[in-house]
């Protein structure tokens, strides 16, 4: 089964969601080609060529792909689609935006955010914010259009040496234009891919108090997240949000501070390897999913944690 995997990147670096989605792509059979579409993305293509399992990297380098505009990306993918039996991409905001366009044009029903490949035509995906798992089968002879939840798959090795083939841009549909971008600047790792995440909830009481978490985050090289309650209260911007309506994360260690554990938040972090909860309400539902729960006032416990980590050399 010939598979096309579309790489996620920011024109500078390849996101590791791509090598994770590769694991899903390989499970479908192969060969797997990776499409890198962007502007000045030679280095991204070089990185993609190292993903084990890639048979070749298709490089479409053009200004019209610089911002992953859905209309332009879909047009390019459609032009390539004839040769492939399956088309996959990580379920990132851009992948989620262009992939359904591809599916609609090919007249196939897309399968969103798969978390496992059960057979080459059978996939499992979460529904109801992960409160139920749905297993679906694609009818034979149908092209598969799939987005992959990266946190559900192990990254493929980076031992490959695929050839890079430059391809031309597709005719841009000229429907939309990029205007501007306001990205939060942070020295910390990105929430979606961080090994450790420290999140705060409504219990933080204010945006200023998040500096308590930032100190811990800096010691553990962690990303800082938040619950929807903390975002709604205006403590932190929306891109901090972990949950059903925010980012889905599955780090090695997730530290939830002052978060009660609403279903909507649990949906975004319950696949983390180890969960720590710090909350003064011992009845808080977050404790039911926490591997290590500490019932304590966060304004006492978090500075203490900072002190203890410092003492231990972090």
């Amino acid at each position, binding site marked *: 089964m010939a598979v096309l995997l579309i790489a996620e990147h920011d024109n500078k670096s390849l996101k590791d969601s791509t090598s994770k989605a590769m694991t899903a792509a390989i499970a479908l059979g192969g060969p797997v080609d990776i499409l890198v579409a962007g502007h000045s993305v030679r280095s991204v293509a070089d990185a993609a060529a190292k993903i084990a399992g890639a048979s070749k990297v298709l490089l479409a380098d053009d200004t019209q792909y610089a911002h992953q505009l859905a209309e332009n990306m879909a047009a390019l993918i459609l032009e390539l689609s004839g040769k492939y039996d399956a088309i996959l991409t990580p379920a990132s*905001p851009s992948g989620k935006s262009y992939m359904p366009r591809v599916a609609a044009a090919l007249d196939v029903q897309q399968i969103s955010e798969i978390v496992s490949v059960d057979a080459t035509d059978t996939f499992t995906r979460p529904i109801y914010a992960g409160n139920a798992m749905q*297993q679906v089968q694609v009818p034979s002879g149908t092209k598969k259009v799939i987005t992959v939840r990266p946190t559900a798959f192990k990254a493929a090795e980076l031992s490959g040496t695929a050839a890079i083939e430059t391809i031309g841009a597709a005719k841009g549909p000229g429907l939309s234009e990029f205007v501007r971008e306001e990205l939060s600047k942070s020295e910390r790792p990105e929430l979606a891919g961080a090994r450790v995440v420290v999140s705060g909830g409504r219990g933080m009481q204010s945006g200023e108090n998040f500096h308590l978490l930032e100190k811990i985050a800096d010691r553990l090289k962690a990303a800082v997240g938040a619950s929807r309650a903390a975002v709604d209260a205006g403590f932190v911007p929306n891109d901090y949000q972990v949950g059903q309506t925010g980012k889905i994360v599955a780090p090695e260690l997730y530290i939830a501070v002052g978060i009660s554990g609403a279903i909507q938040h649990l949906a975004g972090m319950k696949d983390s390897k180890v969960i720590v909860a710090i909350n003064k309400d011992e009845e808080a539902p977050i404790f039911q999913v926490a591997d290590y729960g500490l019932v304590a006032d966060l304004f006492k416990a978090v500075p203490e944690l900072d002190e203890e980590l410092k003492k231990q050399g972090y």
Partner: protein
Amino acid sequence: MKVLVAIKRVVDYNVKIRVKADQTGVDLANVKMSMNPFDEIGVEEAIRLKEKGVVTEIIAVSVGPKETQETIRTALAMGADRGILVNTGGQDVEPLTVAKILAAIAKAEGPQLVILGKQAIDDDCNQTGQMLAQLMGWPQGTFASKVVIDGDKAEVTREVDGGLQTVCLKLPAIVTTDLRLNEPRYASLPNIMKAKKKPIDEKSPADFGVDAAPRLKVLKVSEPAKRIGGTKVKSVQELVEKLKNEAGVI
């Protein structure tokens, strides 16, 4: 200009759903149903555009069972002008089917803007708006946190990884809503009464020549793996010790 808002009747946000014992789906008997929260934001946005004088008519469209009438009434009570119910007779419909029906309606009604929720909180597909955009050959602004209409263009600010991206779309266009776009209003009692007199046109998928049969076969719906937590530590020192030596994650 005319705006079409697509809405879906889903299990209420606050309901803790149960998977059926025979694994054929989620138990929807006697469960509170509501308008998909992202669609509510879509209806609100259309009303705000009308209040600004940008929009002249708002049509609320829904594809679903007969009971979806109530959901459309809610949209009418909020401020939509009329409704279209595409009655599926209770059959589950996939996003591609809904997109095809909406495309047929969009062709007939000629809206300059179609607003949809970014995803329904039941199937979590996040597809319909984008599919509709492709079927119409229109641009899209997904995950919108701000929409500004300026003549024949729409400037849409989108929630992306790490921040916001603003795109300029040629109208007609599709917008899908994210949480921060607005806070939907509650319908007032007089408006609920008024909504009872607003027209709802009832159609079927066949009226639009759309085959509503699902493409994917659902083999089973199961409970997610349960996480076993509940262990407590007594102090910060014990926590750090366990994270280091027992879990080995720091």
